[in-house]
């Protein structure tokens, strides 16, 4: 069979598959599906913000004479510039009562205010009673306040040393870090799209096998053309999906964030080339992994078998993704080169490289290399299908079986 004839046949198969998928009611669900989590995210994001706003820092009641309390409060105040996004404990004064134990218990059991503990004993014999955070943070903070209070404001008036600050827009450290973020983001996009979309190829031949159309196809066109056609039909369908989701995503970003993407540092190759490479590498990753799935799925004879296969196959994708993500941040390392050469992880590794390095020629090379492997995988899948499913040609045997039958 000549190549043009194979391509023509593949086109006939692809056209049928594409039309059967895209002109069905379920395709609308397919398009809307990925938008649900986004909508949920927006909704829950809003709720989350409100919960965060309602959350107040933990409180500790301080049973101490007013002077001691003031010393502690002043110490807390002096240290507060060091607090991170989680603010320091809030200290509340409780004047000492004759029965300390009862007062402590009353304060701890008071349900009106959320109190994590009670502090007494003053600066001389500090004692904390109450819930302790797992990381020991509350007690550490109290200890810090006590230390600082003991030193007292007398040691120095601490206005804070004046440091002259020169602002630089980016430093090499921050740029490399930001590009790693873009690299990981690019890999993540590729990974999520591939894992969402390539899995469908597992079941692509089940229909033909169960309704016997495979016999008509196999009698008329080469198996290679069937595989090629099916793969490209699903790719075309996926690209339509991606187009719709990207448009929806862009609209959402424009609406909610108002140029939020502008805040991201440009990848090494620049945004237009990076976006083009994401599309190209998605196509390659889809064809490579999808081709493999198509071949694996073609061996299954029932929907049940396909369902059983889908989990290990997803795990395989996670492993590939994991291997490729190891290489982020060190594009010249052995891992990075290895991940770029291994065909299945190559698209992931290369998109990360595009974010971190601005040389274009490795991408041309990688795309060619990946395309070669798409052809190899398809040829192999078709050959195995002919052998094991159609039982064509001499049966494949293990070496010991060969000896027995000879």
């Amino acid at each position, binding site marked *: *069979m000549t190549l043009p004839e194979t391509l*023509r*046949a593949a086109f*006939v*198969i692809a*056209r*049928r598959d594409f039309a*059967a998928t895209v002109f*069905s009611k379920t395709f609308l669900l397919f398009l809307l599906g990925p938008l649900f989590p986004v909508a949920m995210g927006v909704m829950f994001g809003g709720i989350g913000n409100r919960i965060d706003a309602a959350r107040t820092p933990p409180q500790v009641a301080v049973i101490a004479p007013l002077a001691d309390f003031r010393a502690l409060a002043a110490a807390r105040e002096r240290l507060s510039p060091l607090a991170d996004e989680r603010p320091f404990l809030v200290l509340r004064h409780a004047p000492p009562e004759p029965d300390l134990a009862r007062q402590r218990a009353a304060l701890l059991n008071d349900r009106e205010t959320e109190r994590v503990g009670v502090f007494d004993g003053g600066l001389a014999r500090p004692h904390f009673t109450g819930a302790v955070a797992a990381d020991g943070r509350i007690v550490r903070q109290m200890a810090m306040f006590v230390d600082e209070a003991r030193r007292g404001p007398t040691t120095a008036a601490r206005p804070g040393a004046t440091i002259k600050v020169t602002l630089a827009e980016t430093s090499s450290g921050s740029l490399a870090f930001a590009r790693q973020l873009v690299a990981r983001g690019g890999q993540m996009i590729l990974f999520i799209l591939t894992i969402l979309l390539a899995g469908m190829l597992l079941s692509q031949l089940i*229909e*033909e096998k169960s*309704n*016997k*159309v*495979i*016999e*008509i*196809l*196999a*009698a*008329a*066109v*080469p198996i290679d053309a069937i595989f090629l056609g099916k793969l490209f039909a699903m790719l075309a369908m996926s690209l339509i999906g991606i187009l719709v989701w990207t448009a929806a995503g862009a609209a959402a970003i424009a609406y909610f964030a108002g140029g939020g993407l502008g805040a991201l540092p440009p990848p090494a190759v620049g945004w237009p080339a990076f976006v083009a490479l994401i599309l190209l590498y998605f196509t390659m990753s889809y064809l490579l992994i999808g081709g493999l799935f198509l071949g694996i799925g073609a061996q299954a004879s029932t929907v049940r078998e396909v369902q059983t296969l889908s989990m290990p196959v997803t795990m395989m994708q996670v492993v590939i993704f994991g291997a490729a993500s190891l290489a982020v941040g060190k594009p010249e390392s052995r891992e990075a080169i290895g991940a770029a050469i291994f065909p299945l992880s190559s698209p992931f590794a290369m998109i990360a490289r595009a974010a971190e390095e601005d040389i274009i020629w490795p991408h041309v090379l990688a795309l060619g290399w990946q395309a070669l492997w798409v052809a190899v995988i398809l040829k192999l899948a078709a050959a195995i299908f*002919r052998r094991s499913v*159609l*039982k*064509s*040609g*001499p*049966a494949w045997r293990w070496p010991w079986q060969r000896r027995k*039958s000879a």
Partner: protein
Amino acid sequence: MGERAIAAEAHGLVKEFDGQRAVDGVSLTVPAGSISGILGPNGAGKTTTIRMMLGIIEPTSGTRVLLGRERPLEAAREVGYLPEERGLYPSMPAAEAIAFMGALRGLPIAAGRRRALELLDGRGHSDWAKRPIRTLSKGMAQTVQLLGTIVHRPKLIVLDEPFSGLDALNQEKLEQLIRDQAAAGTTVIFSTHVIAHAERLCERVAIIAQGKVAFEGGVDEARDRLRPIVHLRTRAEDGPWRTALPASAQCIAGEWRFELPEGGPEPLLKALLDGNAGIETLSIERPGLHDAFIAIAGAAAAREMGHGSIAEDEAA
């Protein structure tokens, strides 16, 4: 046959599945423009032979030539094939399914759609055109698939058990379609385990049993392989005339049935008259293809297996 071109040929086709020999050295010759039948009981290897000849599967050994090409798929545009296990996409409209089958074999989709409507119209089925296959009955779907088999006007049509699943009326229509195609110069090969169809339609038959070709040649040739059958009723139950009957003669409900002996009817008649058998009825009948089939396939099977004959009742 003479100088007629050869449409399809097989030489020593062998196919093993998991060590089991399904087809064991089948050789066939199909002259162009003929209607040829592949006859055999279920499981004899007919479908496997057809699938090898069409290039769906590769033989374990042996060669085949389809319309002059050693790689059958290269002739795909000129071949139409109706598989034994019919299959169409259930959600495809009938006309689209016909056009799709044509497109697979190189017919442009637009031409395929046009011809599909013509074919359906010509049979008074224009209302099927837009109906999805799943809404059609089994017989209707089979008709659609048959039209898809011929939509690209192939030079060679291969039909695997085309009559199974059709009612008498549709079987008659199919026979007519096969005759029309042959009259237009198309070569038709079909397999069947129903001898009556082969007898009515075929110029040539190949009888396959136990994966081997037990007979290949003209239908008349096959019938001539069997000696005529004598049916005889006599008044006398026994007598010296009995020696004229062959040892294999069987008496069923007072009627003797046996193959006409080598000497022909005259010595038999003389012996009957001389022996005072008292002939009530006597008929000598030329065997049909059915008898020939049982004799040929049964004998071959018996030779190979060393016991018994085929149990299949082939009468339509």
